[in-house]
């Protein structure tokens, strides 16, 4: 048996160096991002808390009714009611606010990046391994640089969540645009459309159902990550899970866990419903 020779390539040190370098030199930038993110979360959270609880139940019912049917509406508002009855109303609102903030930012980053990848082959080749890495890294790795840049709280949670959850929307946007029927794009070209007209009048509208599937996946991953991100001090349902683990409190753990499941079901059905709606709007009724 031979031991591995004592060679060390300081790749980890390199990563450390980059992170500290960014932290030292771009502090105002990170502060700005932090401020923007936390005000967005607070705005969402304040708004949700401003609404009376019964109005939220009614709204959830209506959302279910609109995207699915009255049975789903009833189921969804029952779920929310149960979460409230566990005593997690405020935690629920915080979690929802963080998820929404993260998803909105994911969409704002992901769709343009996806479009650019679809239109630019070299960029796509460059991005693909990065996206692979982003998705395969254990998700809590992202918490480390997040803490460095933004210390503790909701902001690093959003940061880590975005890195973890943005790949699906990027990938599916690229795929959707690439997969638009070639003849359809050519027919737009044959009428003398500009590149921009082809993109906005043909490729994007044709791609929307697939992009919606990407947003659905991104949202689900964001929810999963927000729970994990409670390790860096994000409030909400995940924090309750963490407390339950620390105290080995099975009752609390179960209630917090099931609350997350309820929220996941609602978010999944609603975002999938939005996708279906787009598909239905363009035909068969």
């Amino acid at each position: 048996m031979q031991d591995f020779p004592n060679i060390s390539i300081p790749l980890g040190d390199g990563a450390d160096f980059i992170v500290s370098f960014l932290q030292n030199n771009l502090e105002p930038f990170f502060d700005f991002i932090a401020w923007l993110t936390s005000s967005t979360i607070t705005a969402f959270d304040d708004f949700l808390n401003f609404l009376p609880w019964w109005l939220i139940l009614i709204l959830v019912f209506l959302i279910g009714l609109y995207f699915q049917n009255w049975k789903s509406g009833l189921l969804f508002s029952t779920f929310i009611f149960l979460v409230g009855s566990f005593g997690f109303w405020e935690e629920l609102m915080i979690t929802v606010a963080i998820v929404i903030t993260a998803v909105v930012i994911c969409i704002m980053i992901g769709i343009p990046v996806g479009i650019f990848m679809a239109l630019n082959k070299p960029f796509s080749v460059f991005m693909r391994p990065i996206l692979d890495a982003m998705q395969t890294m254990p998700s809590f790795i992202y918490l480390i640089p997040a803490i460095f840049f933004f210390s503790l709280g909701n902001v690093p949670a959003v940061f880590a969540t975005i890195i973890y959850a943005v790949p699906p929307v990027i990938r599916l946007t690229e795929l959707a645009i690439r997969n638009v029927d070639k003849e359809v794009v050519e027919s737009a070209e044959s009428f003398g459309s500009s590149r921009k007209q082809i993109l906005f009048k043909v490729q994007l509208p044709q791609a929307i159902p697939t992009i919606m599937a990407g947003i659905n996946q991104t949202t689900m991953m964001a929810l999963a990550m927000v729970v994990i991100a409670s390790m860096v001090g994000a409030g909400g349902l995940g924090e309750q899970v963490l407390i339950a683990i620390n105290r080995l409190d099975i009752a609390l753990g179960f209630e917090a866990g099931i609350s997350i499941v309820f929220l996941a079901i609602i978010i999944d059905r609603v975002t999938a419903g939005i996708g279906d709606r787009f598909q239905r709007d363009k035909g068969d009724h």
Partner: protein
Amino acid sequence: MSVKMKINNVSKIFGPKPKSAIPLVEQGKSKDDILAETGNTVGVYDANLEIEEGELFVIMGLSGSGKSTLIRCLNLLNKPTKGAIEVDGEDVVKFKGEKLKQYRQKKIAMVFQHFGLFSHRTVLGNVEYGLEIRGVPTEERRKVARENLESVGLKGWEDKYPDELSGGMQQRVGLARALANDPDILLMDEPFSALDPLIRREMQLELLDLQERLQKTIIFITHDINEAFKIGDRVAVMKDGKVVQTGTPESILEEPANDYISEFIKDIDRSKIIQAENVMMKPNAVVSLKDGLNVAVREMEANGLSSVFVTDRSRKLQGIVTIDDAIKGIKEKKSLEDVMVKQIETVSREAYLEEIIPKAVDTKYPIAVVNEEQRLEGIILRVHVLSSLIAENG
């Protein structure tokens, strides 16, 4: 007639180094050899065509012969590797940017094999697309789109989505969309191939009607020789990226340039291509009603005929009289009008053999070819109908 589009030595080669393949084709190497040697595919090689203003020009050839590649060069969806395409005297291959956009927006439009419709837009939204990107105001472009939809028979379908329509209707939308731009030149790449035969025949006839009304220059691609010969004013036959023969359907039928074309036209149904005007004779002996029976008999004897057509003063066809009836009529002191047969079979110049054949079987007289005013334009003898069905070649 003037030349609308002139295709000069156009070649299109696909692959990593298109230009490098040109000398090899010039040396006469085959497509497969060139692909093996250089990795380039010859799509079209050295095409030369002149397309007249207002003509329906068909490009025909087997799958992979380069038809699509060539037609796509015409609106620069493919940029030719070599050669020039003159439209109204300007070489469009050199067009770029704004100029190319203008050319595509105003001069040339395309109808696609699988329709290429925008599934997220309504039928009306599809048809107005070309005008929309040109910045035509909404009111105006909707009006034009509605008119064009009406002219292809889709009034009332404006607010449907393409996937709610049958294939034939979808291609009408494709056609209306192309026509809404009012282009000089209409490119149609196998527009009817995806449709079933009955609808296809209907669409062919409608295209001919439309061509008569609008007088566009149409370049139409098909791999179906019956379709090519039925609708084409002129037909170009392509093989392995080369144009091997160009001419009217009749001239190609009469004199196929090579074995490939003979093979191609062997399974053609001649009764669907040959028209009355291709087999009729000039009516060299005709008598007028006022001439009377004696003149009729003399005419027939002089021309060695057994019957002769009778017209009135304005040369409208009235009937036919046989030599036997005429002689009998003279003996019985009857007039020409009394003895002539008024029930005769007539066809128009454009009638196809397939509709002439049953008439030839039913009648014992020659068939009269008449125009809309019932004036006699030609005569078709029954033997000619049969003989024209048998190919002169092979």
